[in-house]
């Protein structure tokens, strides 16, 4: 049975891992590689590295960071987001160790390029990043570059329905980084019911995670700041999700490496 996932999120700004609050306030956390290494050791199900200043500054993806992450030899699947402009950017990122790509700016700017990425890498490699909020009961889509909101368009809905992207990171951007601020109604109001969702933004409470993961269309919850506030946070969250189809709270296996193998 396919497991529900706990995704560890590392947000990077100006070369530093940061705590991010509501897409507008940032506090330094440390060196990105150290934070990523911790998540890898702790056995999260996927690691999302999002570099939030690459598209705004027109710098393209942070290939240097990816190269350094690649040398770490992560044993955990890696999602990369930040500055992806073209199909060739995507191919290079995958070659350098990204398993999947998070697409945000291109969804606003250039769906043809998203199609090219999908044709080259496959739908399974692409995730839509959708910062959302509810305004007077209406679901609105946030463009972090201009700090503006717009109603979810029919074009976006149709695009998601087409299956070009495999999942959507549904971000409660207002609640991001703030304890228990994720609005479950965002999931209920999300118009495309066949798009698997990764819920993110203000998820700190295991009961709320449980409630979200119990929904058929929620395949994962993503946590950023709150994995760094206490010891063994990943294991504690997973233990608290007992009864749901999640991987064991540790990444240890009952098997030992083959004894006496001649390698």
């Amino acid at each position, binding site marked *: *049975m*396919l*497991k*529900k*996932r706990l995704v560890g999120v590392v947000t990077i700004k100006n070369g530093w891992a940061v705590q991010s609050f509501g897409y507008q306030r940032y506090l330094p956390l440390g060196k990105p590689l150290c934070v990523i290494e911790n998540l890898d050791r702790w*056995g999260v*199900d*996927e690691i999302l590295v999002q570099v939030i200043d690459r598209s705004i500054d027109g710098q393209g993806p942070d290939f240097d960071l990816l190269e350094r992450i*690649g*040398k770490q*030899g*992560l*044993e*955990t*699947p*890696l999602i990369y987001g930040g500055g992806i402009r073209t199909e060739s950017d995507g*191919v290079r990122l*995958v*070659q*350098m*160790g*990204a*398993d*999947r790509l998070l697409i945000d700016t291109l969804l606003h700017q250039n769906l043809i390029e998203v199609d090219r990425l999908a*044709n*080259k*890498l*496959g*739908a*399974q*490699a692409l995730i839509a990043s959708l910062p959302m909020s509810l305004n007077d009961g209406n679901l609105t889509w946030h463009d972090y570059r201009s700090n503006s909101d717009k109603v979810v368009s029919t074009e976006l809905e149709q695009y998601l329905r087409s*299956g070009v992207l*495999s*999942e959507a990171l549904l971000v409660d951007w207002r609640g991001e980084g703030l304890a228990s601020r994720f609005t479950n109604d965002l999931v209920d109001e999300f118009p495309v019911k*066949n798009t*698997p969702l990764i819920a993110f933004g203000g998820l700190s409470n295991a009961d709320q995670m449980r409630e979200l993961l119990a929904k058929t269309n929620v*395949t*994962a919850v993503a946590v950023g700041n709150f994995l760094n506030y206490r010891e063994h946070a990943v294991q504690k969250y997973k233990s608290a999700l007992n009864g749901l189809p999640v*991987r064991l709270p540790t*990444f*240890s*296996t009952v*098997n*030992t*490496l*083959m004894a006496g*193998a*001649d*390698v």
Partner: protein
Amino acid sequence: MPISIAIVDYGMGNQASVVHALRSLGFRVKLTASANELDEAQLLVLPGVGAFPAAMEVLHQKGLVSYLKESARYGRPLIGICLGMQLLMSGSHEHGYTEGLDLIPGEVVPFDGQSVHIGWNSLEFTRQTAPWAASDGEAFYFNHSYHLSAPEEYRVAVTRHRSEFTSALQRGKVVGLQFHPEKSQAAGKTLLKNLISELTHA
């Protein structure tokens, strides 16, 4: 002397992750598309992330289709991972029909209803022998939207996602793994080590 492995470099995949995982297990690993360098390896790994037609096109361009077929015919072990596994088959229906390496009979078909299969899922091994038995029931990381329709005789493991599909298969010394052992933490490393040891010593 460490076992020597060549990872086939055709520009379509997460080579860096595979290289690192295998080196961490103590193998001697080279990433290359050169026939001379590939010849020196005891075992080949064909990784892959992406779409089937684009991958086959690159393999043809680099002259690797005939090389891989010849290599398998002479009994050299070959492990295909994810898209690399699918390329071992007769053909794929991804974006139309494209012929594959045809090292194992069968076809690559989409999941029903625009479904993808992403995340950690368990393997149920149909062969309860080395090197597979030790990994029975373990969860591995999958990331794909097409899967295999292959004869049962080559099936080594199945996984359930809505329905049952082949998640590992073997024909002689050609092995396909639909999941990513290199990104499956301890379970992946155990399987890789056992599998490579078995294929190179049998």
